[in-house]
């Protein structure tokens, strides 16, 4: 088990290194002179040259890369060109809304998709299956902001059940937090529900054709025991994998959802940084989100090994 853990973590390191390299190249090849932007409109060429020297822009590629990697490793992501605040501080301010949205979305998606996919597989070609397949294809076809505006239009504008947009910090008022987040989380979860439903259905159908399921049924176990204890449990690995991989979809969706619902999270930070060409912020958010994605998938991998001893070797 220990060697399995070590191997998985070791395999994730080069990936993170390359992610940091890609993010660094982004800043390196970005058009425009960061020194000139930092110096401001009134700066003389001498001031700009001095700034270039202090922040190390005159160093060759590999030296700057080395400094960048070391700083990133220490948790220093540089300074925003526009607000002149450390990128880590900017990210810290924006982390809570994004994490809240992501966690709520994942909970809703799993709670809807796993039962739906299992029932669809249990009575394949039945009514629930057809509904599940329709959701499975619609979720992939209707973009998240379209669903978001549909929900705002019906539930917020017409029925006035939910606030149109905004965010309430968890510490202020947890019911307000939930009330503000429920529509964004529902819209964001559609594509995720589609993904998990499809995989759950496919893997449960696969498992249900196995011999041990026939054995379980023939020894008189009730259907729900067969489904939950035997089928779903053996289908858990592909489902967990897709939940992990789906986090990538989720992160793309977060950017859009936060824009539609005016949630002050990392997605908004990224969009604003792009509009202002604030490269250190773009870079920092990119590295953080990729690191979260890699970490989630690492946890998923490790969780299989805990639940399924066959995978450890």
């Amino acid at each position, binding site marked *: 088990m220990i060697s399995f853990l070590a191997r998985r973590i070791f395999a994730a390191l080069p990936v993170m290194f390359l992610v940091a390299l890609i993010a660094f190249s982004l800043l390196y090849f970005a058009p425009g002179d960061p020194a000139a932007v930092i110096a401001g409109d009134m700066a003389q060429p001498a001031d700009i040259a001095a700034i270039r020297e202090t922040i190390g822009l005159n160093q060759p590629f590999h030296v700057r890369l080395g400094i960048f990697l070391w700083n990133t490793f220490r948790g220093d992501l540089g300074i925003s060109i526009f607000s002149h605040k450390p990128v880590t501080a900017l990210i810290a301010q924006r982390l809570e809304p994004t994490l809240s949205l992501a966690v709520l979305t994942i909970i809703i998606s799993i709670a809807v998709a796993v039962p739906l996919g299992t029932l669809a597989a249990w009575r394949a070609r039945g009514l629930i299956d057809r509904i599940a397949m329709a959701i499975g294809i619609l979720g992939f076809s*209707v973009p998240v902001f379209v669903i978001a505006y549909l929900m705002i239009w019906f539930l917020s504008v017409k029925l006035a059940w939910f606030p149109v947009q905004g965010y309430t910090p968890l510490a202020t008022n947890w019911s307000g937090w939930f009330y503000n987040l429920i529509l964004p989380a529902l819209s964001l979860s559609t594509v995720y529900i589609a993904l998990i439903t499809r995989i759950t259905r496919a893997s449960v159908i696969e498992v249900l054709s196995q011999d041990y399921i026939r054995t379980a049924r023939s020894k008189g176990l009730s259907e729900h025991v067969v489904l939950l204890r035997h089928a779903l449990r053996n289908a858990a690995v592909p489902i967990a994998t897709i939940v992990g991989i789906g986090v990538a979809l989720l992160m793309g969706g977060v950017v859009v959802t936060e824009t539609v619902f005016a949630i002050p999270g990392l997605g908004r930070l990224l969009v604003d940084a792009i509009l202002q060409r604030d490269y250190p912020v773009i870079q920092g958010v990119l590295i953080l989100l990729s690191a979260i994605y890699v970490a989630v998938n690492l946890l998923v991998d490790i969780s299989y090994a805990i639940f399924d001893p066959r995978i450890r070797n």
Partner: protein
Amino acid sequence: MTVILETTPSRYALWHRFVHQNLSVVVGGVLLLSVILIALVGPIIYSVDPNAISPLRRLKPPSTLYWFGTDALGRDLFARVIAGGRISLLVGVSVSVLSLACGILLGLVSGFFRSVDAIMSRVLEAFMAIPAVLLAIALMALTTASVGNVIIALTISEIPRVTRLMRSVVFTLRGQPFVEAAIASGAPIHHVLFRHILPNTLAPLIVQGTFICGSAIIVESILSFIGAGTPSSIPTWGNIIADGRTFFQIYPHMIFFPAVFLSITVLSINLIGDGLRDYLDPRMSRNM
């Protein structure tokens, strides 16, 4: 009494069976053809300039004069939506063709040569660790906003997935007897790769290509919507929706029409993709 031993089914019966067995391809195909027709022929018949500004006809709801209404600058939304269709289809098709071409080449090499694969896999994993939408956003931040750059950015973020698929298909093929026979009989490597392996990988790649086309259209609209895609002067569905955001609560038609077109287009492409997968890969169709 006559006994009919053998009947050739009527043309209608054959057609009926084809439609019934491939319902999703037929429905998707009809929808997609209508969208293509509207996007290609629409601007010729309905020759209103999608960018013509007119303060006199600002914020008009849909009517017989302005089918989809007008936006805050008085631009005709019907003209804008059909013009946007051209961009979306162009982006979808270009991205799937380009990323398939690059992914097929990289995947062939990576799947066939173990030494290349060791390095390539790590690089692909790193690219895949950056969520596709974010990678496209980051690439767009590097360049100027244009349709060509959106196509390049989306292609780069799709290539790793195609390469991975191609690589795994090539992996299973290279152990097959017919490939080993070709190698043993002294066929040159390029002959083995392009004549023996490539044709056998096409089915899953065509299916993947349709899904890439759908997802590229969605990501393009996302990029435009958040202001990181095509310049706002070009009418794309994402840009039209972004323009309508401020007025959405009073004039929902500004978002409704581009959103419906966007969703139907992607839905039709995904229906075709699902149907093709069932048709080309019967093993998968049982489950998915």
